[in-house]
């Protein structure tokens, strides 16, 4: 499979990365080179093989059902969370007006 400029534009839009025409033109052969190379995976017989999502068998733990059990990742950290925001206003993240 290979991609054309329209497809790359579609992917870029899905990925929320603005790309102008020149950038798209340049990306098409680069992505095709990579995609053609990974095509070889199609040769591998994977009959009966389960896709591997985790290397070490591990079950997800549940934390104790306690409010603010870990003060670092618990609540009450509004100031810390907003500290790096490009536009923090009135205790919220500020964004441009959204009108649908």
């Amino acid at each position, binding site marked *: 499979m290979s991609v054309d400029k329209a497809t790359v534009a579609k992917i870029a839009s*899905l990925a929320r990365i603005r790309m102008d025409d020149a950038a798209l033109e340049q990306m098409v052969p*680069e992505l095709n080179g990579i*995609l053609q*190379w990974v095509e070889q*995976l199609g040769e*591998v017989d994977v009959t009966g093989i389960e896709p591997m999502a985790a290397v070490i068998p591990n079950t997800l*733990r549940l934390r104790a059902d306690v409010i603010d059990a870990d003060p670092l990742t618990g609540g009450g950290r509004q100031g*810390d969370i907003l500290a790096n925001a490009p536009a923090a206003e009135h205790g919220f993240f500020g964004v441009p007006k959204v009108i649908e």
Partner: protein
Amino acid sequence: MTDLTQLGVKDIRDGVRAGDFTAREVAESFNAAVAAAASLNAFIVTTPDHALAAADKVDAARAAGEPLGAMAGVPIGMKDLFATHGVQTTAASHILEGFTPRYESTVSQKLWDAGAGMLGKLNLDQFAMGSSNETSYFGNVTSPWKKAGSNAAMSPGGSSGGSSSAVAARIAPAATGTDTGGSIRQPAAFTGICGIKPTYGRCSRWGIVAFASSLDQAGPMARSVEDCAIMLGAMAGFDPKDSTSLQMDVPDWEAALNSDLRGKKVGIPREYRMEGTDQAILDSWEQGKAWLKDAGAEIVDVSLPHTKYALPAYYIVAPAEASSNLARYDGVRYGLRDLPEGVGLQDMYAATRAAGFGDEVKRRILIGTYVLSAGFYDAYYTQAQKVRALVARDFERAFEQCDVILAPTTPTASFPLGSMNEDPLTMYLNDVFAVPASLAGLPAMSVPATINADGLPLGLQLVGRPFDEQGVLNAGLAIQQRAGFTAKPEKWW
């Protein structure tokens, strides 16, 4: 007085404990060495005050007769992928420029708790995506090594290129690295130092800027196997804040180091004999076999039949996870915001990400987005995950016949910066020997073996069973003792 910057982790720790010198003297020496090595561009920011404050704490603790931690008095470099409280953390990207975490990553906190101090935040490939340290927004890192008869700036490898350059140049006795598909081992091999990626889950990923979560693992980079064992012990351990953290005790790897390999079997994977591998690398592999045999091990042939497919599988799995992980950089909560006049939210996202990500990062996000998109998911992503399962199964079967695997770390020695940029694929191929162990989550290490005809270091790689860092370190130690690798780059910076 000895030049303290020539000392490694163990010698500094022992010297500070014995009172041969103070932690402050060590920190001052390395701070000065860091300040004098700006031309390597190994650091994005330096934090001499952090190193001094940590040293003073250690000296005070010693004076008060308190017990000292495993890294007491050792100033280290911190890869700029670890969130550090109050110190800019960028992942070498523009999108995170100026981001100053209000929290500390688990691994860095453990190192500070063990008595280490921070010399600064080390440069890397942007978001750890690269094998030559040429994708950083803050400029290339240069290796302290030069090719014989040439003045060309050489690659320190990547992505932990600031780490490898700093440790090889002796401006840091050790540094943290992270390894997603070879990012500790390949730079270690390029610069003549040691680096170990532990079993997936040994080191907490909490507070490490995420690239590919099912692969990312932190590990130490230092100049000896002993130093790696000490530092890994300080970095590893269960962390409830990382859902994939291993709930296991951390063995005392340093205490159990033993280079007597009698009764051990070392597997030589025949599929690693690949076209395009330097003859000098193949020769060093032969030499490695002889060294391990000399240490008492039996050498056996093993087969890892899916080796050739590991790299293409990696270049689907890793970008897929990256495209998802990097979706968080949207210009809303932290980092860069690019808000052109009069545009809405969606355009702000797209403009921010266009301005904030470098070319390689964009390429991988696009690949990842494509292979996860409707209609292509099964053909690419599911197929790659199945191949990943086969790569892991190959190792399982090989480890029925051997205890540890010996292979080259890289197919070539370091190359000049700028010489491999024509086609992204050529660069990817540099990780061909490193990626399989990453896909399988296995502990793997690179140790320096020899110098090639160009005067550049070559590394050998050891891969172990899950949780058997000790077996990897022991075989690494056996090689280190026999290789007698003492070469170091001539100072030009």
